[in-house]
């Protein structure tokens, strides 16, 4: 495995993707810290309000504006910060509002959307809007060009596919041929108002209700001046994601389900021709020792002899056997992952004794993420 520093060499965007609960936010923060330490100006974008992580970065609250993390905090942890680390938490609603303001041809169109009742209700909760707004903010920051590297912690999606489809799904409802149905003078908006005689529309009115249909038509209509702008921008966002200066890292856990999802997600990346950089497996139970060599040793007996306490020896042995079973499962799953992805490039981060939520923890994680191959082997052997 080339070390993570090499994988990210010359990259401008690093996207950490994976299912929920696998430690994406922590991994993103650790990567951003490591790259900033090596001299880059890095901004990490998160959507998860991981409060304590914000606290630990010395940021009382993360907002829709990037804030710089105080370098003195890193020095206290023994991390030499040669570059700069910035962090921000995405506010999907504010980003959506900004986007509308930017795309609107004039103030009137802008206000018509922003003040639309349906827009106000859905701009926060709209399916896919978090994902899309994350891409949008990424695109905006990249265009402004203030940072050497942007690290995106993607929102937790149950299905990895949702994330890649987000721009498409979101623009679907405000774009293209179908919307023009609403906008033509003879389109749905007019038809709903009663001039049309379509039977289908009559049926639709019956089950949806006239008022809602009219409101929806007005909502879609309000976006009418922005269709082309939205489409063009979505295209540029997609182009940026496929650019060789972008790197997708798949983050997962060592259990069967997250590993299967990582395999699936990798396949989708390849299909979409998006640049895959590597896979990071968090919370791995390392095999404590290569025990097959001294299988002759009766562990409970050896322990009992040393501890002079048969009961304690039994419990220590039972715990060890449980732990080994998990370590073996993890090793099997990671082998499977590596062969499915046709890579040896699996970065393993061990299951640490304390869960990671502060700078000290990030520094610890970084030792594994940015270690060279030999260092990693040495660290694994030294653990547990």
């Amino acid at each position, binding site marked *: 495995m080339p070390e993570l520093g090499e994988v990210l060499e010359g990259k401008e965007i690093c996207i950490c993707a994976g299912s*929920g609960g696998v430690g994406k936010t922590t991994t993103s923060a650790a990567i951003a810290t490591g790259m900033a330490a090596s001299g880059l100006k890095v901004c990490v974008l998160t959507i998860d309000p991981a409060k304590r992580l914000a606290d630990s970065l010395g940021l009382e609250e993360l907002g829709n504006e990037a804030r710089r993390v105080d370098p003195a905090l890193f020095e206290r942890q023994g991390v030499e910060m040669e570059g700069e680390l910035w962090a921000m938490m995405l506010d999907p609603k504010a980003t959506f509002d900004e986007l509308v303001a930017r795309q609107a041809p004039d103030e009137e169109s802008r206000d018509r959307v922003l003040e639309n009742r349906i827009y106000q209700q859905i701009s926060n909760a709209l399916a896919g809007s978090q994902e899309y707004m994350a891409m949008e903010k990424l695109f905006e920051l990249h265009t402004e060009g203030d940072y050497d590297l942007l690290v995106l912690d993607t929102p937790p999606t149950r*299905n990895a596919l949702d994330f890649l489809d987000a721009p498409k799904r979101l623009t679907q409802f405000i774009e293209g041929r179908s919307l023009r149905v609403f906008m033509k003078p003879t389109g749905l908006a007019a038809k709903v108002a009663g001039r049309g005689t379509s039977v289908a529309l009559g049926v639709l009115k019956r089950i949806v209700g*006239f008022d809602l249909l009219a409101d929806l038509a007005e909502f879609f209509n309000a976006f009418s001046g922005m269709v082309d702008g939205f489409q063009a921008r979505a295209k540029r966002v997609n182009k940026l994601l496929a650019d060789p200066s972008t790197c997708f890292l798949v983050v997962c856990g060592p259990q069967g389900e997250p590993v299967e999802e990582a395999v699936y997600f990798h396949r989708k990346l390849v299909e979409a021709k998006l640049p895959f950089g590597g896979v990071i497996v968090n919370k791995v139970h390392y095999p404590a020792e290569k025990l097959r060599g001294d299988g002759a040793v009766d562990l409970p007996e050896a322990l009992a002899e040393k501890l002079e306490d048969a009961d304690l020896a039994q419990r220590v042995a039972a715990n060890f056997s449980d732990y080994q079973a*998990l370590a073996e499962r993890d090793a099997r799953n990671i082998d499977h992952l590596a062969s499915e992805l046709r890579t040896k490039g699996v970065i393993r981060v061990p299951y640490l004794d304390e869960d990671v939520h502060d700078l000290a923890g990030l520094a610890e994680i970084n030792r594994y993420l940015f270690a060279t191959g030999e260092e990693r082997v040495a660290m694994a052997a030294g653990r547990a």
Partner: protein
Amino acid sequence: MACGLEIPLRGYSDGGRVFLPACEIARNCPIPELLDKRLVIVTGKGGVGKTTVAVALGLRAAAEGKRTIVCEVSSQENASRIFDHTAVGFHEVEMEENLWSISIDPDESMREYVLLQLKVRAMRDLLFRSRIFNYLAAATPGLKELVTIGKIWELAQLDRKVKQGRKYDLVIVDAPATGHGVGFLETPRTFAAIARVGPIHSQAQRLDAFITDQEQTGTAIVALPEEMPVNETAALEKDLRDEVGVAVDRIYLNGLYPERFSKPECERLTQLAETEQGSVRAAARAAVSEHERARSQRAQLARLRRRVETPVKTLPFLFEPELGPEAARRLSRRLS
């Protein structure tokens, strides 16, 4: 219900009774136990074990003789996988005695809804073929979530209109991972507000009333004993209660390690790890690790209990490679 006007005041050793205003009575009246409700929503962050808990609750209810169905709302089929069953899709399939499973597909739910609304076949065909209908169905934000909740409601009805619909005593929903709190459960209210009048408005209002009826509908939050999940669980409890207005009946803290070693034992093992080699050293260090994790988890458990109002129940970490029906059954016996 015999929830008279006299409520025993907690903390009085003489069993003193006192008159309370109506709102206090509502708060103190015993609500039916979790599995006695019609609908239980299992929610929480991704990767915390929601599906496992939903299935375990289902097994428990089924064992008590309740006809129970576990609903998944993504196409992942994690529940049927626990039973080593093939994907069930949009069908009510029996997994075990009294326990069914379904994977709710929004498009199928929408079709079913329209079929129930329009009795005339020609009208339905006309609608399904119409470009406007298909466009609105695909493009209207939140509609998928709304029809999904509509299907859940339909499953919980005692007089189901769906052909060959079974009656269930209990519907358990494995809710989508909460990215930002409570969006999914708020969908009916959002729609009721968007559609001020008309059929969608009244349907959405009926769904919202069902979800927020604390006698009929309960929620269980699944969490992990770690710093960030504990914070998020406390925030979720508050949002569910204050913003959605549902009853939060249980918090299941999942994956709790056993406390196998005492502190003095751990000190001895630390020493042993320093002086020994090979498997004895490795086993001693694994024990110290386990002790540290168990201790840090207990601290998180205590922190969670301080921060939430809901009773917190713990579920043990299962030391087995992958979860099957036997593990889920064992877990179901630990639920309370």
